[in-house]
């Protein structure tokens, strides 16, 4: 039974790893810079493992979700700024994912886009209201595993594996101009941010509390975050490889999920297309629900209100009201006709700015023996925590200037 739980936990972590922004950023990184940004995937995956594990451990030992920790450790001023910024980014990402789901449904069954936004809204409201937390995680996490068709595509395209391996080592590529180096830096920051999206940590820790984790679950947390996120990182790396092999020779920049599907189509025809579209549907839908619930978790945890998907909606009225509101607002945003891909692109770049404010209190709490007792960070975890805190702070400082200077990586 425990084995099954671990197995399902890992699979859901893999299936829930990729969302619309990461899909397109990864493919375009490959299309623009071949395999030379693969090392960022390794770096980002190790970062999300380090901080996901810490946040999960705090949830298991102290039963403190991330925004409890942020409020207590950074004080009200910085805490509320982080909360507002995380809520804005969460709502924007949720809107983009709803738009992505509507685009996928349109590719599957040709009806008007706005009709699918309304249908998606009704679907999500019913799913979040009716399905238990564990089922939400499993249905969408396991369905998202269909995205493994991209792994099969990468293998079928027979890349030069020696060249792939060399992309895993950080080194400056040979580019023709300063503008291209700036664009390379922009993609490195955006890729790092798309892998270390803050909502993943918030949701993961809240999920640990929803699942009643206790200090006995610390090894389980370590195993699931380590293996699940690593396998998710491999999926992201294959997206870069597919982008490099299929789009780079034609100078294509994928701006639509349907364009990303061209990879599996060229490798496996109609079967590849259907697997890819279904995989994207589950992956984007899972990310919609995770973002929507994350905003509700963050706000209720910050203000010490009752929260929990496990509890009946009437028992946690503020929590229920917030996720309902977020879902409706996110759908309304994409109903205006705004391009979901552009929305998620900005959301990803802006989310890197929140990362230091989210990670600093997590690191401080995880290393505090007074709170964590024997489960406090060891030397390696502390060293990695500090390294990634410095890294995301540098990335946060560079993100917006790079976005402006490079016209979102276009120059």
């Amino acid at each position, binding site marked *: 039974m425990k084995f099954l739980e671990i197995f399902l936990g890992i699979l859901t972590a893999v299936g829930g790893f990729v969302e619309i922004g990461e899909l397109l950023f990864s493919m375009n990184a490959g299309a623009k810079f071949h395999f030379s940004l693969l090392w960022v995937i390794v770096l980002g995956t190790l970062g999300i493992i380090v901080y996901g594990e810490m946040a999960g451990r705090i949830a298991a030992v*102290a039963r403190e979700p991330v925004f409890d920790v942020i409020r207590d450790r950074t004080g009200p001023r910085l805490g509320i700024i982080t909360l507002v910024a995380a809520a804005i980014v969460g709502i924007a990402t949720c809107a983009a994912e709803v738009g992505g789901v509507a685009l996928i449904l349109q590719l599957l069954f040709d009806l008007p886009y706005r009709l699918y936004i309304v249908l998606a809204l009704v679907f999500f409201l019913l799913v979040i209201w009716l399905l238990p937390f564990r089922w939400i995680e499993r249905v969408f996490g396991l369905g998202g595993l269909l995205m493994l068709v991209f792994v099969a595509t990468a293998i079928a395209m027979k890349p030069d594996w020696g060249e792939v391996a060399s992309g895993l080592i950080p080194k400056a590529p040979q580019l023709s*101009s300063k503008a291209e180096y700036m664009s390379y830096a922009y993609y490195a920051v955006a890729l790092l941010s798309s892998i270390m999206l803050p909502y993943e940590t918030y949701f993961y820790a809240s999920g640990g509390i929803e699942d009643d984790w206790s200090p006995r679950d610390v090894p389980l947390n370590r195993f699931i975050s380590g293996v699940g996120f690593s396998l998710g990182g491999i999926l992201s790396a294959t997206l870069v490889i597919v982008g490099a092999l299929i789009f780079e020779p034609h100078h294509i920049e994928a701006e639509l999920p349907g364009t990303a599907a061209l990879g599996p*189509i060229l490798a496996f025809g109609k079967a590849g297309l259907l697997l890819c579209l279904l995989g994207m549907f589950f992956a984007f839908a899972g990310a919609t629900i995770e973002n929507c619930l994350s905003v509700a978790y963050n706000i209720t945890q910050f203000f010490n209100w009752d929260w929990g998907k496990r509890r009946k909606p009437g028992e946690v009225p503020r929590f229920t009201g917030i996720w309902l509101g977020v879902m409706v607002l996110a759908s309304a945003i994409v109903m205006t006709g705004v391009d979901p891909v552009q929305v998620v692109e900005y959301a990803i770049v802006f989310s890197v700015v929140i990362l230091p404010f989210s990670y600093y209190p997590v690191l401080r709490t995880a290393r505090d023996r007074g709170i964590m007792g024997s489960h406090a960070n060891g030397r390696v975890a502390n060293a990695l925590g500090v390294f990634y805190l410095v890294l995301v702070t540098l990335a946060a400082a560079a993100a917006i200037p790079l976005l402006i200077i490079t016209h979102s990586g276009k120059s």
Partner: protein
Amino acid sequence: MLGLSAGVEVVRAHQPSGRPTYLRILVELSIVTLALAAVVAGVLIRESGKPLDSKDLKIAAAELNSLAAEGVLLASQSPGSSVTANYFYVQSRSWHEKVQGANEDLRASPPAQDQQPSYEKSVTLAKDLASTAGRLAGSRPTEFERASSLRRLQTLEAQASTLRSRLAHDANAR
């Protein structure tokens, strides 16, 4: 274990501040956000009125190249056979909208004086691409129409690729 619970109590002792404090912080935050938004809006308005320079045209040519190449890959698919008919028609329409958007954006901005020839080439290419995309996406094309659109798109992709390389070279040389 005792030490652990004591530690938790220490953290819990930091309760959130009262509502008026949060309200004040939120008001301050809104003012700062509005000020930043005004600065960004000002920069965007100034940028939108600026004539297209070599860097802008390089970006526009890269976009046209990307769209033309995507059109070639799409038109190479056979609806109902290598892809589903729904995918082909919906993706063609979305792609057509992107092409039209690129075409309109290009026409909406005048070029800098020294960029007139490159601008005219880009506009002609965008117009040709939009018209071919319209034929492929407009109605359910026959096999013959799809094949003829594919040939036209291949030509346009080659032209776009040449233009992109030349403009990238010019922009880098400056």
